[in-house]
């Protein structure tokens, strides 16, 4: 495990090589990217295998000395990041292969691969970080990679806006993380995870401080993972190329928020309030985003809201002290959501539209994509025997056992919504007859089918490493040697599994009745509750709300300051100015009133300081 630091360097190398030689390599760039990420993947798998038998490995050296303070940099291979390394490098590798077909013919093909390399490097670096500061550094770098990839089609106005929005929105969260990190440093004198957890355990940090810093770190996670109320960037980010959505906005970057909470879990576990916040925000996001997903008409946006909702599930799990459940769902979700996005990309590739109203009857035409999409849909809906079923069950059990019954029922409702909108999507795209005339519908090339097939297998199989039936292998391994993380498996009542199954099946049934059998009118919601429909359709008007408050707020502050600059201050010194002007009318025209203003402001500033000093300095 001494060589784990090499893992992120392969994609970095890919980035640098393509940056320099990309123009000459053209589409051969793909091979450079694919080979180098394969190297990362191979090493990650090896690390994971090694971690099964050996203890956690950590290597650090001093990076920066400030006064007596020593900041370190290094890497760590523990259970959580060994698992994450494999997830990230695997999905990245598959996306590299897939993009060869999907991006074929794009004139900036090498640039795309270069950006993918940069992003993968940052994400792997983030996962290996042994301390908060290093995590933060890679955290920002990940955001930068995502910014470049979302804005890849920069000639589209919407893509440009989406990139900017994603950057600013996640940055708001990042500031929370930064403040939390600095506060923790102030309290514990260290950025190291181990040392922070040790101080927390010893009680060196006050209860309120733990809660405050945990919540600030969670704000960072909220931004990155698209949780309410900072979720609005994620659906817009779908303007990026679809493989990017699969890599960044399904499997890796958005999961970084969940990963961060998981990595700092002992801190959260020390504060009931912090856990409560995490679980409430998570559960609310889960149901909130799922309800929006029901009425979206763009195939990628449905998936985007479903991602937001599933990330909410993971947060709910972590907030309910279900460390294992959260991480488990993080893993299964990475596989089935990446599969869904790649399959959606394949559909878009075939029909050249993202509007599901215009699709239909694709089952027969896309003979590989369709069944693979179905596997993903079954997995996310929590149908028994698919991976999502097991991980979702773990979450529901954790929520129930932790005691907050309201959140449990919210999660169950969200599961119903999920099954419904996912099958609505599936039926509208693949079932029935084509609703518009589509020509040249063709199955995607092998380079796109292969990654989907791999993910399809994983979307089923990955659930079986942690089941109540065949043993909770993953859970036991994850928490081994660290009591702060809770138990590997939480026993829950058996009826939860039955309820979960029933709920997901009834969601599917409802979708079937509406969109295939048509025994319930599709317009049912619009006609019965037009208001609800519009609210959902407009995503609860969150964007509009932000537009009203933040944008106008910022404008108002800036206007106000300008107002002070131009009117108040200038008005104040107008008398001086007028005096000087009458005196020096002969002065050249260049000396408009402004120069005097500048001097006057300096004088006024000095005078104010002196008056304050006179009043407080003890003379008067």
């Amino acid at each position: 495990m001494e060589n784990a630091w090499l893992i992120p360097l392969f994609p970095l190398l890919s980035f640098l090589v393509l940056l320099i030689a990309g123009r000459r390599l053209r589409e051969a760039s793909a091979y450079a990217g694919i080979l180098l990420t394969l190297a990362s993947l191979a090493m990650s798998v090896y690390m994971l295998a090694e971690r099964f038998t050996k203890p956690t490995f950590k290597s650090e050296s001093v990076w920066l000395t400030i006064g007596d303070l020593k900041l370190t940099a290094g890497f760590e291979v523990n259970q959580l990041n060994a698992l994450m390394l494999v997830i990230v490098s695997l999905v990245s590798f598959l996306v590299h292969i897939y993009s060869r077909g999907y991006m074929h013919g794009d004139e900036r093909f090498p640039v795309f691969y270069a950006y993918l390399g940069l992003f993968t490097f940052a994400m792997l670096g983030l996962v290996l970080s042994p301390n908060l500061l290093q995590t933060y550094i890679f955290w920002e770098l990940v955001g930068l990679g995502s910014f470049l990839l979302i804005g890849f089609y920069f000639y589209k106005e919407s893509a440009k806006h989406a990139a900017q929005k994603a950057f600013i929105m996640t940055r708001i969260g990042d500031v929370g993380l930064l403040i939390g990190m600095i506060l923790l440093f102030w309290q514990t004198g260290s950025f190291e995870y181990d040392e922070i957890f040790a101080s927390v355990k010893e009680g060196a940090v006050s209860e309120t401080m733990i809660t405050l810093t945990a919540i600030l770190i969670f704000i960072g996670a909220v931004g990155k993972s698209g949780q309410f109320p900072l979720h609005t960037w994620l659906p817009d980010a779908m303007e990026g190329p679809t493989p990017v959505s699969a890599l960044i906005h399904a499997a890796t970057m958005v999961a970084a928020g969940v990963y961060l909470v998981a990595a700092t879990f002992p801190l959260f576990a020390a504060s009931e309030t912090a856990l409560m916040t995490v679980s409430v925000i998570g559960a609310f996001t889960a149901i909130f985003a799922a309800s929006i997903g029901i009425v979206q008409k763009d195939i990628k946006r449905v998936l985007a809201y479903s991602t937001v909702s599933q990330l909410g599930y993971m947060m709910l799990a972590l907030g309910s002290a279900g460390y294992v459940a959260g991480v488990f769902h993080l893993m299964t979700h990475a596989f089935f959501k990446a599969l869904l996005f790649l399959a959606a990309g394949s559909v878009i590739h075939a029909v050249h539209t993202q509007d599901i109203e215009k699709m239909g009857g694709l089952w027969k035409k896309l003979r590989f994509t369709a069944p693979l999409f179905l596997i993903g849909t079954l997995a996310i809906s929590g149908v028994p025997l698919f991976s999502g079923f097991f991980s979702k069950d773990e979450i529901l059990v954790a929520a129930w056992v932790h005691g907050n019954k309201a959140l449990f029922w919210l999660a169950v409702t969200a599961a119903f919504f999920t099954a419904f909108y996912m099958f609505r999507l599936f039926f509208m795209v693949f079932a029935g007859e084509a609703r518009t005339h589509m020509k040249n519908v063709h199955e995607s090339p092998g380079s796109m089918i292969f990654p989907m097939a791999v993910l399809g297998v994983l979307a089923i199989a990955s659930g079986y490493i942690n089941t109540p039936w065949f043993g909770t292998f993953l859970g036991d391994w994850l928490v081994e040697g660290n009591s702060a993380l809770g138990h590997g498996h939480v026993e829950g009542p058996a009826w939860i599994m039955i309820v979960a199954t029933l709920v997901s099946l009834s969601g599917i049934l409802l979708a079937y009745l509406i969109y295939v059998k048509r025994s319930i009118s599709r317009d049912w919601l619009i006609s019965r509750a037009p208001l609800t429909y519009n609210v959902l359709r407009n995503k609860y008007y969150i964007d509009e709300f932000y537009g009203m408050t933040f944008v106008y707020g910022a404008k108002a502050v800036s206007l106000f300051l300008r107002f002070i600059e131009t009117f108040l201050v200038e008005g104040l010194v107008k008398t001086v100015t007028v005096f000087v002007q009458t005196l020096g009318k002969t002065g050249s025209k260049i000396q408009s009133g402004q120069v005097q203003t500048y001097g006057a402001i300096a004088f006024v500033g000095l005078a104010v300081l002196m008056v304050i000093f006179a009043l407080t300095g003890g003379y008067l």
Partner: protein
Amino acid sequence: MDLDKLLSFQWGMMTPEFLILGTATILAVLDLFMPKKMNRNILGFFGLAGIVAAIVSLTLLLGQDTASILHDTFRLDSFAKAFKLLLLGGAALVMLLAIDYKPKEGMEEYRGEFFYLFMTALLGAMMMSSSGDLITLFVGLELLSISSYILAGIRKKNTRSNESAMKYVINGGISTAITLFGMSYVYGITGTTNLREMAGLLSQIDNPQHVYILGLAFLMIFVGLSFKLASAPFHMWAPDVYEGAPTPVTAFLSVVSKTAGFVIMMRVILSVFAAVPSNDSDLPLLFSMQDYIGFLAGATMIIGNVIALRQRSIKRLFAYSSIAHAGYILVAFSAMSVVMFDSIWFYLLAYLFMNLGAFAIIQLMTMKEGTEDISHFAGLYRRSPLLAGAMAIFILSLAGIPGTAGFIGKLDIFLGALMVDPAHYVLVSIMIATTVVSYFYYFGILTQMFFRPAAHHEKIALQPGTVITVIICAAATVVFGIMPQLAFDFFNSNFNQFIDFLQ
């Protein structure tokens, strides 16, 4: 003073200054006798060689013990060495830009002046960092200022350049008056102009009235000197002057002159006011003035970053950004932690590279255009990916994104401000909040470069000096961002925490 006495001084410690003075003199003479038609670029290279020679001689002096000559008016202590390195490094890069600077209307007639005025300004700044006396300090300050006034107006046929110089002179005059007024109080109380003697006398002061007067003097000196830093309340000249001045001069003002401002600020304020006992506590007067510095630092950060949001001209935008950066450095100054010198020095180092690099690209992009509108950067990525990449590094560093020297600089200031007791968390919060505000305008430039189509697609004519500057700056910004320990090790091994600052 007889000849023997004159020869007994250790003139060797002034070698860098003599080199700069000599170069400036030779440049002036050469310029006078060179045929009018001859290209003056050679003078620029000669000046550059002088600066490089001064850097070399300064590095040879690094190991030398602290000493002073000329009745303790000229000191070569580690503080002087550390900051002279920054001043010389910055000036060398500015010189490279100046050689490549060829404005539309032409300025062949005064290119010679252009070069040697940079040298005299640099000399003034270097004298300031070595002064042990208010008189030499002030002479150095004026040498820097007067040279800069002329430099700002060197484009004699350009009205905006003239306007800029005029505004600069007037504001500079006001600031000098205020500074001198403040200094006169200190002189009045101590009866000496030597900084070390002053400190000695002031530490025994027991008249509360005198302490009060010194408090007023502190405020006057601080506000007067804030002109050089372009910080509140003396910041308003910066946008106008930066916009009108030739780009290399703007770069000089925003980096070298600002560094010199911090040098004189620390010299005067730390050596004089750290000695004065306070009326109401055991700590020196300086500590009871922390709140005022903090207040001005906060105001500077807010003003700089908020008004920058509305700028369309890239040079005005950078003027406000440089105001904001002065505010960040003042946070470190007002915190007065044990790492104050490290953080200010490192921040100025990082700022030197990221800002000069950005100005090199600004000069390249706007020299041929009549205006400095941000839209000139549109589609830069299409026209020249490497330039766009370098500019992105500078912008990210200015915004304080991890992986760059700017981030380490900010982190250092954060930690320093939280290290002291009581922690300056209000200032730190303002700094974080205004940094977030700065993302908006910095990323506006990034968006222009990467996500907007170019107005025209002609190749950008690269110039060697500018390219070298960009490469050096980009490399340094990244290297000090990833391996900041290089700089800190150098600092600690050579300058010994400025332990000899007051000896």
